């Protein structure tokens, strides 16, 4: 799953990473088909941030666009990583839950709505504490409820990456697409450095960080489905292809024994870096 760089194409590409959440969502849908649901003018911002002297954003950092993909109905939920690190507060999370639940209702009524999540988030919004945690649990439940009907496709493009409770949401999705710029993990490197010391993790060492939790590494050890170039067209193509593909017989989260065996095979004294994990897990084919 390595990425070869065609220089002409690379220069001609339109970066997906550099797009705002709203632009990303529209870039995945058929041109001109997207209509925003609960947009900024509906002013569903967080009431909790202002109480803590933090400037809110009117869409609370989550953009929900309903439109068409290859002519089929689709809903794209994009998290804006630039606002509060894409953190999940009450409103932001609830917008994701509602989008997923409405997609499920569509399927129950025979409308084949395709759900896509563009995850760019550090996880729970600490200022909203339990409300954020609760809504992340609801997102997990909504993904699990929806995925028997249709693949739930997630993209992590970077540069924020996807962490904390939302990394679990990513792992629950049917199809996971990353760029090499993306990172996916439970604790972010800064948190690990702070909690376990710089000897355990030097968060300033980007090569080290990406060798452990970057998109290329995650692809090499079989924890994601697609590694794509930072190109809006390539991401849109991968998302569309994910809906054409046969649904996974078993989601990763259902392969408990397989992953328990994998974890049991790790000797922490031996597997100390990304390369060692690749050697051990290889391109772990999903059963």
């Amino acid at each position, binding site marked *: 799953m390595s990425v070869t760089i065609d220089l002409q194409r690379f220069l001609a590409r339109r970066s997906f990473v550099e797009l705002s959440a709203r632009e990303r969502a529209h870039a995945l849908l058929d041109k001109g088909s997207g209509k925003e649901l609960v947009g900024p*003018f509906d002013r569903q911002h967080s009431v909790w941030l202002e109480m803590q002297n933090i*400037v809110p954003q009117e869409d609370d950092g989550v953009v929900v666009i309903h439109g068409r993909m290859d002519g089929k109905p689709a809903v794209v939920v994009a998290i804006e990583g630039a606002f509060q690190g894409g953190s999940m507060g009450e409103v932001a999370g609830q917008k994701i839950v509602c989008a997923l639940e409405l997609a499920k209702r569509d399927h129950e009524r025979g409308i084949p709505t395709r759900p896509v999540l563009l995850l760019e988030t550090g996880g729970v919004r600490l200022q909203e504490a339990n409300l954020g945690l609760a809504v992340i649990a609801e997102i997990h439940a909504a993904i699990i409820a929806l995925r028997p009907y249709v693949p739930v496709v997630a993209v992590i493009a970077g540069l924020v990456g996807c962490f904390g409770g939302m990394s679990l949401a990513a792992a629950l999705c049917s199809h996971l697409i990353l760029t090499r710029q993306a990172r996916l993990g439970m604790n972010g490197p800064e948190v690990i450095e702070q909690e376990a010391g710089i000897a355990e993790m030097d968060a300033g060492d980007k090569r080290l960080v990406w060798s452990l939790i970057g998109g290329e590494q995650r692809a090499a050890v079989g924890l994601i489905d697609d590694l794509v170039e930072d190109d809006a067209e390539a991401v849109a193509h991968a998302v569309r292809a994910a809906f054409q593909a046969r649904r996974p017989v078993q989601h990763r989260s259902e392969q408990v024994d397989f992953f328990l065996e994998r974890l049991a095979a790790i000797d922490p004294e031996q597997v100390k870096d990304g390369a060692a994990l690749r050697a051990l897990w290889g391109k772990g084919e999903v059963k």
Partner: protein
Amino acid sequence: MDVLNFTYPGETRVSHRAHVGVVGSGDLEILLEPSPDGAAHVRVRTSVDGYAPIWRKVLDRFFSRYKGCVSIEINDFGATPGMVMLRLQQAVEEQGQ
């Protein structure tokens, strides 16, 4: 966080609204929509305290050229005056489309 309010005289009616920017570091979000009366109203929420005189100057300059009857809401996360002016111009441009 400071909350600031400004009012300017407006001349031309506008019919559309526009949304630009994000509340990210060094950036700001602007919501621009038709004003309920014949004036222009600006409400600023900014993460940087104590800069009301600078906001006044930036907005004075903006409304010395722009005469739309608009309600503008700004959610600012430490944008420089230059950035604020660019986003205001972008909002007016989007509104006109």
